[in-house]
């Protein structure tokens, strides 16, 4: 466990390296990946519960603990973070502008993400959460693309408005707990009165929901994705949005189960609207990144829907969906990033027939699109299946609407694939070389993961289940 903490510290080293920055950051992201894989391997599925616990009293008078641990829910998230960071660094290999600052900020962001996933103390979760948010501003505003300053400012303000709700929520629970502790599990043991739970749940749900792009608080997300540089989009859509869903699960649902029971209708409604809305708006977009942005809104809606069912399958599916969607969006953005770098456009009408000139690059996008639709043998298929099965059981009408939303999203994905990659060969792009093997490596890794977990979902589901089963039993 402490190795992970060490890793966080080491991550800051690239700050002072001059030209080596890229190699150094690649090395450290690889170390992170290996450590996460080791952690994944070392995690005892049979035993379940919290493992690799580190718990030190931090501020005595307030009951703040440095409390880090791994369980079945955050483990897949850690793995996801490590994978996306590693591939993200590889994707940005061509970066030339202010390289050192870019990687330093990116590592700071990821350090925050690791921190949120690992911490089991409300105070630290919030600290890490904010640490992971503010590097987004310079990352988008300096290295971004379309309307970068607007996108960066909108994103930062939206997300921090979210934390403006989370902080009072956390403090409210701390005061109501009466035991002066920020430790999640102690607070959970104490329990809260139904009224407190209802109030606190709304604050935490809305606060984290903004980051999870819950409809109607999603508008920052497509704009931010479009404005961000490739690797940042990958981390942002792949990992950062998961922080929101993870926060809802870890804080709001763990501490306020009755609050969730009270609001679950509302949560499910917002999630369903998000799925359908995201799909329909995605249909109308002409910018590749906007399409992916709205499909993310739609997919994150599925996570919300799964969580709101409060069943083992639903939450299992939601966590799995977080993982699957993270890998998938990373692949999406990474392939769009490549296309954009070469053609300097990401407008669908300008492209077309790309599969003739760059078959491999197109293949990556198409795989991602299939994963997004939920084609069998892809990781997201299992996740979506589980969410829908439990959703239709719990909320029949909304469940059916959500499935319809998925059909629409299949429609728009296929439309994009058809217009961008098939059709007539476009002579403007004829001279562009296809992906080199080195540039293809990160995408191959991502595709591999999607397909691997598509064939062997048990490997990850067992881990998730080891935490979800006791969790649901405790609700």
């Amino acid at each position, binding site marked *: 466990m402490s190795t992970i903490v060490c890793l966080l510290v080491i991550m800051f080293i690239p700050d002072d390296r001059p030209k080596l920055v890229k190699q150094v950051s690649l090395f450290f992201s690889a170390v992170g990946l290996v450590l996460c894989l080791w952690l994944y391997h070392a995690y005892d599925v049979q035993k379940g519960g919290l493992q690799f616990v580190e718990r030190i009293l*931090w501020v005595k008078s307030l009951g703040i603990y440095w409390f880090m641990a791994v369980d079945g829910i955050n483990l897949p998230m850690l793995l996801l973070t490590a994978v996306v960071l590693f591939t993200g660094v590889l994707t940005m290999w061509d970066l030339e502008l202010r390289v050192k600052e870019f990687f330093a900020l990116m590592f700071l962001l990821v350090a925050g993400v690791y921190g949120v996933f690992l911490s089991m103390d409300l*105070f630290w979760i919030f600290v890490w959460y904010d640490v992971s948010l503010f590097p987004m501003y310079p990352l988008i505003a300096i290295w971004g693309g379309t309307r970068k300053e607007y996108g960066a400012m909108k994103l930062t*303000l939206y997300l921090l408005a979210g934390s403006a709700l989370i902080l009072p929520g956390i403090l409210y629970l701390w005061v109501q707990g009466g035991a002066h502790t920020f430790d999640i599990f102690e607070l959970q043991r104490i329990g809260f009165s139904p009224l407190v739970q209802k109030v606190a749940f709304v604050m935490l749900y809305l606060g984290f929901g903004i980051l999870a792009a819950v409809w109607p608080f999603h508008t920052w997300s497509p704009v931010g994705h479009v404005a961000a540089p490739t690797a940042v989009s990958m981390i942002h859509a792949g990992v950062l949005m998961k922080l929101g869903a993870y926060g809802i699960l870890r804080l709001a649902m763990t501490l306020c189960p009755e609050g969730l029971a009270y609001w679950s209708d509302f949560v499910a409604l917002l999630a369903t609207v998000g799925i359908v809305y995201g799909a329909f708006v995605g249909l109308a977009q002409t910018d590749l990144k906007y399409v992916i942005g709205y499909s993310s809104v739609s997919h994150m809606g599925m996570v919300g829907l799964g969580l709101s069912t409060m069943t083992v399958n639903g939450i299992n599916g939601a966590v799995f969906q977080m993982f699957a969607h993270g890998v998938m969006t990373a692949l999406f953005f990474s392939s769009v990033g490549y296309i954009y770098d070469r053609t300097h456009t990401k407008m669908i009408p300008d492209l077309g027939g790309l599969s003739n000139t760059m078959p491999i690059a197109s293949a990556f996008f198409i795989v991602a699109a299939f994963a997004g639709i939920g084609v069998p043998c892809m990781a997201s298929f299992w996740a979506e299946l589980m969410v829908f099965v439990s959703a239709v059981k719990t909320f029949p009408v909304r469940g059916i609407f959500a499935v319809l939303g998925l059909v629409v999203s299949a429609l728009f994905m296929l439309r994009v694939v058809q217009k961008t990659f098939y059709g007539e060969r476009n002579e403007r792009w004829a001279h562009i070389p296809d992906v080199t093997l080195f540039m293809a490596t990160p995408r191959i890794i991502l595709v591999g993961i999607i397909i691997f977990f598509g064939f062997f979902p048990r490997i990850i589901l067992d881990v998730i289940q080891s935490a979800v089963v006791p969790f649901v039993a405790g609700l």
Partner: protein
Amino acid sequence: MMKWVLFTPELYYVLMALVFFCLSLRIKSEPRKLYGYAIVMSALGLVVTLIFACQEGMLFFDAYRVDLFSQVFKVLLAAGTFLVIFCCSELKGIDERQHAEFYFLVAICTLGMMMLVSSVELLTIYVSIELSSYSLYLMVPMRRNTEMFAETGVKYFMIGVTASAFMLFGISYIFGVTHTTYIVEMMKVMPGVIKEPAAIIGIILALSGFFFKQALFPFHMWAPDVYQGSANQVTAYIATASKMAAAALVIRFVGFTGGGSPVFVNVLVALSVLSMSFGNLVAIIQKDLKRLLAYSSIAHAGYMMVGILSMSSRGYSTAIYYAIAYLVMNFAVFMVIMKIADDGHNLQIKELAGLHKRSPLLALTLMLGLFGLAGIPPTVGFTGKFLVFAAALEKGYLTLVVIGMINATISLYYYLIVIKAAYLLEPVRPYPAIRLDGWTKAMSIGLMILMVYLGLFPDQFVALTEAAARSLP
């Protein structure tokens, strides 16, 4: 004789004032030498204050109380004075012939504020507040190009005197109700009379004098003009040290009323909300960096009030912590301003363009300082806000805390504009490179470490502030 030991820090600043008074009598002025004297003396002052930080006792017929609370603030004041003088190596904003007077007034003002944080008797409070105020009234118009900024000095003086008059009026009411000017005596009588309108009016009027120093809405009118109109060093002094003293006094004064009167508490809540919202909203449209900081200081007075109005021991201790945090962050920002505008002009936000190339160190200091002011972890500003809001929520002010957090988000917008200027914009015409000596570099690195350290490891400091809050009468 022993009792005078308690008074040593104050005596030291009297000595410092005397030295500079004598130096100011000379016709020839040697700025470099004066700066050397000043920095050595203020550094010694900090050491002296630190040595006597653990004293306790009463002086002057119990009108003067030396306890951990007052000593913590004295250390902060001495530190603030030292830091401001440290940045005076390029005191271009003030005429060379007046440098000795400037240091003299700084010493006197620090003396007045040190007395202020120890006074527990209304008239002593009044005398010390006037002592510090009058030196500030003199320091503000000392700037070069006085014609341009003459209005500033007059405005500050007029508003200040009016506030004093209100305060005296309020004090007379309090005296009329409680028949004493000693705060300790008053605390015994207060619970019986706190519901009387006269007592509430008296307390609020008296507090308005202190709120004036703290620049809390609606007593903030002077702040933007004074921040903009006075020399950068004077502004830094007002923004850091003077705010400290006012905060200490408000904590002590609010503390003795004990929260027995809902009307009084509601007034404080309203002032705090208005102060936060007004300060943050108006700051958005500012173009001058010092003016922007003036409005942000109004907002910060509101945040501090959130802790104070909880009227609990935790509330006071968190407000003290917030004051420490504010001193460090604000000073970091002002140091950057003073170093960039080393010829003493007012810094516009757009002049920051390309700062990350001209001086990466200052840009980083500025960014951390501003993130601190905005309340972003892992800086001290976040921990301060967190503690203050925790204290307020403990007393059930949920709405107030939500408003406070919304304000923190609003404030982030204009801090981000400044950071954007420093990191993203390219300058229209090249600005000269910034000269930094080794000391300044060390200072900015030190401040950055301090900001993060205080933010991430607050344990000891929270314990210290809690001990200080317990020592309140």
